[in-house]
């Protein structure tokens, strides 16, 4: 397969990518097979990100996660450096800015949560050190006092500074830092707009969206299905335990899950256990005799 054929094939594959794991793996295998064409093929990925609608864009991002996993098992480790370098650029495509022509009610943040989970996975596989902090930040309230004042004044969120180009650092961690900061800002925007809607009782947009961001009913249904698939996949690996440092890591996890025994709070659990045992041994709930010393 020459480079032109490979480009055409990949463009076709990416433009009709489904959220299933098999589809992503198939694509990743293809890219790995033709790793000598990596510069050519990588540009195809970026181009198809521009051409596709929002649903396909997040599917492509999911495929990139799979690709990174595959490439890390490869001795040459192709593609990884270029993907990580452009991580912020890719994210700006997945979470695009709102065009000026659109009304203020429309929002383009549907991909936020999925992008977050995928970025977490990518950071994990790259052994990104600051992941824990960013995860904590993402879960917290990011609104500042100034944001609250702006909401009071009915001012829209200003997302322009997010999309300005900045100089990228050299190291992988620095590049990932940039990507994470962008994502956190987007999260802040989502919180801002949620607050805004609650405050000013806004309506959903009535006019249909234009061009690539238009959502037909079919696309909406496809999106619901895709999210369901993603959710299922996420659940499958949720409990995986890494035992590289021995079983003590798992113990730490277990130890932090449970709180101290509390005689009142844990009474239902204890009662149930005792009842089960008594039922199995005596047949009826069996109460221990009260202590004779305290009997009047």
């Amino acid at each position, binding site marked *: 397969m020459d480079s032109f054929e490979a480009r055409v094939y990949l463009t076709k594959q990416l433009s009709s990518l489904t959220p299933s794991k098999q589809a992503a793996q198939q694509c990743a295998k293809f890219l790995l097979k033709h790793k000598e064409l990596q510069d050519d093929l990588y540009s195809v990925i970026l181009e198809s990100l521009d051409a596709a609608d929002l649903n396909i864009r997040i599917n492509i991002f999911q495929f990139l996660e799979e690709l990174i996993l595959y490439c890390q098992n490869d001795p040459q480790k192709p593609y990884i450096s270029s993907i990580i370098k452009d991580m912020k650029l890719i994210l700006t495509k997945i979470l695009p800015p709102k065009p000026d022509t659109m009304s203020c009610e429309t929002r383009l943040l549907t991909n936020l949560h999925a992008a977050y989970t995928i970025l977490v996975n990518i950071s994990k596989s790259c052994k990104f050190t600051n992941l824990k902090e960013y995860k904590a930040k993402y879960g917290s309230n990011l609104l500042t006092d100034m944001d609250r004042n702006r909401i009071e004044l009915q001012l829209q969120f200003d997302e322009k500074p997010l999309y300005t180009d900045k100089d990228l650092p050299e190291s992988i961690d620095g590049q990932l830092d940039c990507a994470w900061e962008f994502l956190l800002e987007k999260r802040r925007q989502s919180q801002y707009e949620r607050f805004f809607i609650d405050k000013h009782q806004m309506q959903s947009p009535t006019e249909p969206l234009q061009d690539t961001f238009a959502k037909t009913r079919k696309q909406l249904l496809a999106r619901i299905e895709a999210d369901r698939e993603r959710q299922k996949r996420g659940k499958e690996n949720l409990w995986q335990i890494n035992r590289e440092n021995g079983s003590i890591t798992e113990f730490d996890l*277990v*130890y932090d899950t449970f709180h101290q025994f509390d005689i009142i709070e844990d009474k239902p659990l204890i009662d149930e256990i005792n009842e089960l045992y008594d039922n199995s041994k005596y*047949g009826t709930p069996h109460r221990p005799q009260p202590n004779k010393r305290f009997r009047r």
Partner: protein
Amino acid sequence: MSLSPDASGDFVGVIQLSKPYLSKEEISHLFKNSLKDDSLARAYKVKKREVFQFLCKLIKVLQFPTKILQGCFYYYQRFYMFNSFAKYGSAHYDVGITSLFISLKQNDYIKKLSLVISEAYKLRGIVATPQEQDEHRKRLLSLEKKFMEFGAFDFRYFLIEELLIKYAKYFRIPREVCFLSWSMLNDLYATELPLQWPSNFNAIVVLRTSLLVWNELNMERKVERLLNEREVAVHARKDEVNNAVNEFLEYYLDSYETSFMRDALEQLKLRTDSKHIINDVILNIKISLHQDDRPNGLQPPRNLDEDLFFKLRDYDVGKTGSVRFLYSKKKYLDEVSQYASEKERYIQQKAAALRQAPTQPTGKNYRAPPAHGVPNNPSPRPHPNSSYQSNNRAAPRKTFKKNYQHTYNPNRKHRPERPFDK
């Protein structure tokens, strides 16, 4: 438990009471049934250890949490209590994987069985075609049904892990000792203790044992804690706890090398050579424990032979009749008592019919109860411990009429005047 349909083509109904915990004598009786002789018992022990080792590895490969393993050991041991080892002994790996699968489901961890099977094949170094794997999968699913049946579809089993950590925090036990006890908890599941005692009791037993081991190993960093069971709502006598600790320590005498405790001691950077641990630590603790092996004189030993619950399971009952599972012993006893009176009536009826016309078939609408497994208790309400499983048919409730007081009227405003009140 042999329940074949009667010659008259009668319908067989079985009531089975769910019993998640069994007493020690019941367990030994059950194992006597399933492991007929000593050679089988030895083979069972060897295979059990082999399978448990294999499951530990499988869990690590699949990256499951250890609590899956805990439930899995519980189900594995229960399987061979109710099923003949001579028949299922060669399928010990299948039983192990099925119990793992059930434990997975119970803890709400979704993983495809085919994936588990293919990993198991890889681990054992067996090459199998996809077709063979698919057949294996079907075999395991049919085995799973058997698990459900002898377990009476009862999933009210509580893992000890949660309570162990909660108690450890309550008694302010240091974190590293808690790690030791959590590791020892995984060993506890390989013994018979979780089959006998409820989770809160076992949590105390593990905590106690691990404290003893810790103090014996670290003379200079002793952790002195008074574990009061009553404080944490465990109703057990002192000798019961002591005996359980003793039984638990016995496990280490022959399987310390492969235990989780060894692994934990290694991670805590303590002495781990087996000679020292077994000879000095474990035996010392055993000697220091005040052992009380006196049999409990209050209860006379029950005759378990006549109870269907303690027979090997026959899964063909479901094909010709029905098996009903009950969780409450009270309901179960109600049904059994009804059956006893019905049986008497039936015998009288039969005798009367025989007197009138010996050749006539007995009873018009009445179907004969099966001959086997009839509770041998003649009184209408049997002794609570007498029987756990009996043949029975669904019968209308009779207690309703007996308890119904027709003079009682809930809307009555005045009490009826009684002559002697005035």
